[in-house]
């Protein structure tokens, strides 16, 4: 079972990596910050699978923090994008 969960975590990470390549090429900054979103969800999935595969229950706590802080980073981004809009006007 552990091997299967580890493989699943690896697969999810690989999917995330493929998406990252697309995202980081842009063109817009909003595309880029999607990277944080994608990695947020994918990273949480990989963490949960990893935690179960390695019997590290604390991985769920890491996932919880990741979910919170990914949202925090995205809000910071949105504020930054807004600020430059205002500056330009």
């Amino acid at each position, binding site marked *: 079972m552990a091997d299967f969960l580890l493989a699943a975590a690896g697969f999810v990470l690989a999917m995330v990596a493929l998406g990252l390549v697309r995202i980081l090429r842009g063109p817009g900054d909003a*595309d880029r910050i999607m990277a944080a979103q994608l990695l947020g969800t994918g990273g949480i*999935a990989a963490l*949960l699978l990893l935690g179960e595969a390695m019997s590290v229950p604390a991985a769920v706590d890491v996932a919880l923090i990741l979910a919170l802080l990914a949202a925090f980073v995205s809000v910071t981004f949105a504020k930054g994008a807004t600020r430059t809009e205002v500056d330009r006007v």
Partner: protein
Amino acid sequence: MSLTLDVLTVLSVCAGAFFFLAGTVGLLRFPDALGRLHALTKADNLGLGLIVLGLLFQVEGPSAALKLISVWFLTLLAGATVTQLLARTARPGGMFE
């Protein structure tokens, strides 16, 4: 009993992994930022939900299960609202359109 649970886990996790695949395909294929955001958040949140479901068959005790479910809920809540915010910045006029 444990074999049944294992089979359920494998099925559910595989289905979840498939949705991550679908999300990535959408990300690679859709032409505009809003479309990509759409593909990404829907498919990946569903994929995460299925993976959480699969792991629920493995954990012991209600508190560990509750924690897993709350991770998924938090991701959904945060994802749904934050994606709105991001979509507005992706529009030409930014948030003050």
